[in-house]
């Protein structure tokens, strides 16, 4: 039984008296979609921010296993987590490079590989073969993703020209172009209509099946969560209150209580 892709143990995040994440432990597996759900303010995005190095966690450890190596995410700088450990993410309010074209967005994601091939721009400056090869390969990878998303015709348009749904999917494609081991998606279905949500589900399932990758998903849209998740983690007030498959979670009384509140009390005296 190999180690899970991601092991989070006793993760805590405190902001000057406010405890956003409280002693959270969970795992995520490769080739699986793990969803994190919970009412608003439960600390879900905070967990992501800790995982991806935007916050320095107050306590606990996060370990990513990749190709037999261990990465202590809680001790790494943000960009290293993305570059070395291979944790990619999308953002709640979409952070595409709106002034740059679709192709450029996907090329920026492959920055590391291209920089190495260009030998810090020297090979690139003189148009040497290794760089040209690497650039062509990067373009091919970008083209494949655009083709799969049906956005190939818009490759040279600026990202700002895309519709909301297309932007969301492009951001996912851009994250995938970094060649990650773990893909973290922060509310990818927010603002999508039912048809777009279907397309998103297909995309995420395809990613799970075709790549050696684990997906971690924050979502409110239950059609997505229940439809594609292999495991669900439920948070409330920064604590884990349930963990399991879709059926198990739906039936868990703690979850129901968190979402719907206590049942109404009878009048005093009965």
């Amino acid at each position, binding site marked *: 039984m190999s180690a899970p892709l991601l092991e989070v143990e006793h993760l805590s995040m405190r902001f000057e008296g406010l405890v956003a994440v409280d002693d959270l432990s969970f795992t995520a597996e490769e080739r699986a979609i793990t969803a994190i759900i919970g009412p608003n303010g439960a600390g879900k995005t905070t967990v992501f921010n800790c995982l991806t190095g935007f916050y320095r966690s107050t306590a606990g450890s996060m370990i990513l296993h990749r190709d037999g190596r261990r990465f202590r995410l809680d001790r790494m700088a943000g*960009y290293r987590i993305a570059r070395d450990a291979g944790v990619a993410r999308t*953002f709640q309010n979409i952070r595409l*490079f709106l002034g*740059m*074209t679709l192709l*450029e967005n996907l090329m920026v994601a492959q*920055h*590391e590989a291209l920089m190495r091939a260009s030998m810090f721009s020297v090979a690139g400056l003189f148009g040497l073969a290794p760089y040209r090869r690497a650039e062509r390969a990067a*373009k091919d990878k970008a083209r494949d993703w655009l*083709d799969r998303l049906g956005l190939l015709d818009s490759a040279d348009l600026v990202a700002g020209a895309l519709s909301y749904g297309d932007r969301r999917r492009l951001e996912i494609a851009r994250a995938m172009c970094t060649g990650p081991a773990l893909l973290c998606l922060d509310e990818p279905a927010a603002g999508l209509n039912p048809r777009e949500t279907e397309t998103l589900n297909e995309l995420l399932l395809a990613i799970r099946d075709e790549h050696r990758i684990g997906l971690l998903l924050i979502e409110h849209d239950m059609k997505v969560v229940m439809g594609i998740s292999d495991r669900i983690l439920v948070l409330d007030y920064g604590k884990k209150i349930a963990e399991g498959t879709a059926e198990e979670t739906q039936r868990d009384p703690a979850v129901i209580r968190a979402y719907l509140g206590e049942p109404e009390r009878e009048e005093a005296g009965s």
Partner: protein
Amino acid sequence: MTEVAAPEPVATTHRRLDFAASLKEAGLAALVALALAVPLIGFRVVESNGTVGLTTRFSWVAIGVAAVFFGRLVLALSRPARRQSATGRGGARLAPLLQFGRRYARLIGIFGVGLAFALPALATRSVVDLATTVVIYVMLGWGLNVVVGLAGLLDLGYVAFYAVGAYSFALIAHALSLSFWEALPIAGLCAATAGILLGFPVLRLRGDYLAIVTLGFGEIVHILLLNWTSLTGGPSGFGDIPRPSLFGLVFAPHAPAGYRTFQDFFGVDFSPAQRIDFLYYIVLAMALLTNLFTIRLRRLPIGRAWEALREDEIACRALGINPTTVKLSAFAIGAMLGGFAGAFFATRQGFISPESFTFIESATILAIVVLGGMGSQLGVVLAAIVLVMAPELGRAFSEFRMLIFGAAMVGIMVWQPRGLLSYRAPSLRLGQRGEAAP
């Protein structure tokens, strides 16, 4: 663009109300103008024989206030009509012209370069001299463009690298008896090193803070140049700077022992214009190389990373890009280009002093980049031409130059923040129907 004609006012009461409101608006504006004008325009402090006195210029105040009043009135009254017909802010009317410009940008560029090369044959010596100054500023503008336009880092102390280039060139060439061509790359290296040293501690800072700190660095360099007399010669400056030669041919009436003069080699009469033309061609070549270099860098991953960083640093971090090294590279390359320009400046003048390296220079170069459109190569050229030529058109322009530039910077930001000529061409294309473009 179809224009919708302003409709006739529905009722005369409408028009009267509009007029009253506009009057009030204009009146308030005039009142503010009065408050602004009275102390500093209305009075003038005069010095005579060591004492100060006061003169009044209330006529100016009256004119100014009246101008503001009527100007605002016209603005207010025409607002409904303008709202109907305009399809966008100021830039809309320029748009067709700009589109034409974009399509033929390459052609215009080639024509411009050709004209630049032919200039010495077409124009007088003083024009060529002026053009040399223009090209220096173009180089500086393209250099700062890497930092401000591409990477989006507001550097207010760019003059520091210009100065490091000039002084390191002069001092090292003097100390090691090097020629212009030998010392030039060293100057660039020194400037790049300065860029890295200065950049390293501060590139983590937010935009505002970075701006102030770079401003501070510019000032520190200036103060050091002034006071470290033993090294830099202090306020009296430093001369004895080597002049460039053409493969060993010297541009002077007589050559030192072991060298031939240009006129001797080609069998022509000596003329001072030869050296001026030679310097012009050198800086022109340097500028063109700078241009090719920066355009090429933009198409490489490093250039894309600069632009991505400018757009969204957080997204860059999430993609595994180290913001500090990327910013540092922009800083260092921009500094190196500024250093080359500084070295040329030194050799052209034959003499350098701290006076030439003040904040005003940084502000001027920034103005060129901003007004030309951050990121636009052609825009920088046009802005540099305007900036250098304007004072030549008359003493009035020369005095008002920085005033107008300051106002223009504010104006451009408010009216068309991306500058007059800025349009971002993608750094690479996929081409038609997925076929990879060469």
